[in-house]
């Protein structure tokens, strides 16, 4: 395996919770904080930190709507986020096919 290839993997998305948040938001127009907690199956504190990280990277937009008991944090994916997620998926597919072919070569050499 060539380690130089790993440079293309976006570190921002190389985290299970962040990746799940991005995939969920990619399939929806918007989602609130509680929904993202359910989808990621992670603690609220963790989701909150990951949302902030993604917002700082410009991958998502966070807005607050309403006030009092009906107040909610609404998240939307940005164009930059969509592009990053699709590139990340493409890189994973490339990496996977390369790793499989490398392993097949190794097995045939060993055999």
């Amino acid at each position: 395996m060539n380690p130089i290839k790993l440079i293309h993997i976006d570190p921002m998305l190389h985290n299970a919770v962040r990746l799940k948040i991005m995939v969920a938001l990619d399939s929806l127009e918007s989602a609130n904080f509680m929904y993202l907690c359910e989808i990621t199956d992670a603690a609220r504190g963790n989701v909150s930190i990951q949302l902030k990280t993604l917002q700082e990277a410009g991958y998502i937009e966070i807005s607050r709507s309403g006030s009092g008991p009906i107040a909610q944090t609404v998240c939307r994916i940005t164009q930059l986020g969509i592009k990053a997620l699709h590139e990340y998926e493409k890189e994973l597919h490339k990496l996977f096919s390369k790793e499989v072919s490398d392993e097949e070569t190794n097995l045939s050499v060993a055999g």
Partner: protein
Amino acid sequence: MNGAYNTKLELDMISRTRAQVVGRKELTGDNLFLIWGYPTAFVLFLEFATLMLWNKDWCEWLWVGIPLVGAPLMIHFLRKDYHRTGHRTLEANIALQMWIFIGFISCLGGFTLGFTGIFPLCYCTFQGLLISIGCFVTGVILRFRPKIYCGVIGAVLSFAPLFFQGDLWPWQVFVTSIVSVVSLIIPGHLFKQYVKHYNEL
């Protein structure tokens, strides 16, 4: 072996999350058609009755009543829906933007009728077509066939007011109220049943 295994796990996680989100997509907005349908049918029927009884210019102002009743109700129910499900789908957002546009045009038309006191010959046909096309497009976006059929029937019925001219013109309003029943109330009830069934699965 580990490298390929980890990459495969990550790709699986992406597919699983995507499937989970799609599978959890609760259909919302089931009340929207009814929120707009009942005030439209009621106001138009009221206008028809007042036109038949008095036939005064102020009757035209009743058109404004439709968005005045429908818009606040729509905003209230949409907020409630969003709070309950926690998400909004892309399809629902497109349909919503379209209905906001239709509501805005209807509101503008109502004010114009009220201020000018002139009732254009094609106004009822235009309103009926607007509602029916909205119903048809929503059906296409949400892949709900009854809305598509009701939209087509409503669009055909929208041309019926053109046959009522001269002294019979108040009947144009009555026919438009029937169009609102066909294009909003009937598909609204059918969609409500469908949503109930879909969300129970």
